[in-house]
């Protein structure tokens, strides 16, 4: 198969709704703050669960029409709730690092719903927790809606991965946590925004010297086979786009 290139630029119209598909622990909080500054306060909303569903389904058309930026942990299937196809943006992260970050986050935040259950658990035990949600979460976000297994029905794992890749390929923008600065450069170029500077990393765990043992790393990897494949695909695509970005910027400088 031949891989094609696509234009980087995306012209947002007055009716476009930017939906930030926020996958937990991918530097999404920081990115959302950056995105929020591009819109008026009343145009941006961040919500979860039933509050978000009410917003999409039960608010008046006039209320819905004023939103231009939404953030939620709902997956790609959120388009079914919205009157027009949203413009998707997201961040991805190395799956192993992401799971470790989730574990640390839950233990660090006393009011987290799983804090009391997880605080005494080691990483390996955490991976076995029934509500830990550490298995291929990024693929599930990009493939589905509520992330439940039954929703994604008859699709085998490989088809699930291909579906997530197809959606990722079509997103107006995605970034990588590990390449945050380049992601922000790509973001501002994509939507033709002025260069974004001086952003502050939010919701970040303090640096911890503890190392993760090899057994735990392998356990995480085995539970995230699809996410690892998706991330490898995303890295390749991201490098292409950054190279394309640099080429377009050089061309623009040359024209001037």
């Amino acid at each position, binding site marked *: 198969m031949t*891989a*094609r290139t696509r*234009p980087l630029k*995306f012209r947002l119209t007055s009716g476009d709704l930017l939906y930030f598909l926020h996958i937990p622990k991918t530097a999404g909080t920081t990115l959302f703050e950056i995105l929020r500054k591009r819109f008026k306060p009343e145009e941006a909303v961040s919500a979860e669960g039933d509050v978000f569903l009410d917003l999409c389904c039960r608010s008046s058309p006039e209320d819905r029409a004023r939103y231009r930026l939404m953030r939620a942990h709902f997956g790609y299937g959120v388009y*079914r*709730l919205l009157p027009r196809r949203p413009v998707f943006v997201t961040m991805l992260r190395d799956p192993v690092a992401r799971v470790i970050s989730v574990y640390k986050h839950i233990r660090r935040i006393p009011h987290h719903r799983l804090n009391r259950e997880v605080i005494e658990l080691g990483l390996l035990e955490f991976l076995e927790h029934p509500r830990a949600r550490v298995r291929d979460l990024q693929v599930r976000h990009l493939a589905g809606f*509520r992330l439940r297994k039954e929703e994604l029905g008859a699709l085998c794992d490989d*088809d699930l991965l291909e579906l997530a890749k197809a959606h990722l*390929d079509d997103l107006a923008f995605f970034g990588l946590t590990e390449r945050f600065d380049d992601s922000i450069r790509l973001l501002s170029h994509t939507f033709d925004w002025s260069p974004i500077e001086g952003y502050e990393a939010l919701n970040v765990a303090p640096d911890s010297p503890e190392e993760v043992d090899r057994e735990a790393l392998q356990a995480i990897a085995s539970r995230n086979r699809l996410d690892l494949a998706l991330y490898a695909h995303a890295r390749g695509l991201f490098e292409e786009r950054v190279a394309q970005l640099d080429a377009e910027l050089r061309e623009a400088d040359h024209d001037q």
Partner: protein
Amino acid sequence: MTSDPLRAPPRCLRVLLREDDVLLFSLIPGTGAEALLPIVEGQFAAADVFPLRAVDSGKAIAAAAAERPEGYRLVCGNFLFGPYDDGLYKHVAQNPLRMTMLRDPVARTACEFREIVENPAHPQHQEVVTEGLDLTQFAKNPRFRPYVYNRQARHLVGATRSVTLEGVDSLADELLLTIAKERLEEMAFFGLHEHLLESAQLLLYTFGWDPDATSADRLAAAEGLSGYGGVSEEAREAIGEQTRVDAELYRLASRLLTQRHEQMIEELIHYHHRWRPQEATAAKVRQLEEIVTEQRDALAVQRRDLKRLKAIEHSWGWRMLVEVSGLRQQLIPPESPVEPLYMGVRRLLLGRWVR
């Protein structure tokens, strides 16, 4: 399959078409989508309509887009759309509002075959006519697979990163169907050829367009036309083998269209009820009506009394009294010394009738 869209909370049907929106009407061959074109094109100025109806080349699209820097508002045609298409995404719109029409896959294929046979300008016309192919042979011939194999699903999936139009064949059926369903659900509107009138109603409702009185007649006529002759069982089977994904897509589309049409009717009824007079206002209106009725009755009584008084005034008895009264005032003026004597005699004679 992905989550059943028929169990998802229903989304808002109405779509606000803004000044900088672009509407992309995908005309999939053989679906009869052209029947809705007069409705759609009638909503836009001619200059706002993209001049091409099919992809000649990326350069042609770029040139057409460059001719109108302020952009187009309507694109109609047989275009594969997506970030990796031949130029529509780059030069015209990245997130247009989309609409399309679907049709029963067998009927669609038969209709497109007929269009190829009847149109000498069609790229496949010469080959099909020269070889004298019938529909069954056409459907079974690998050379014409792009015109038969799940044509509607592939059109909806559009231009993806890792495949070309021919390469979409490499997508597993489940995946092709899943993505095609998503594209369909994402659309602002889709219609079905076999339900043209309902589709047109939903189209008008979706974008808030006014119905044209003549459209209903044209649509009824278009719906009555099958667009193709009967299909043999052999041809039906040959087409069916290559359109399983399209068949499933069509089944979903039928149910979804019915659901949306019903939702439209419910919303219209709800809208009508919101604007009827409230109960409290109706009571007040009734109260006011009662007051008006009372006043009207009182006025009628007054008119009757006035009429009676006028009758009395014109009677000889009244005229006599007036004459006598006038004579009395001449003979016995008020405040004359004889007045009290007159009044006393009058009281004595008339008694209780005199106040």
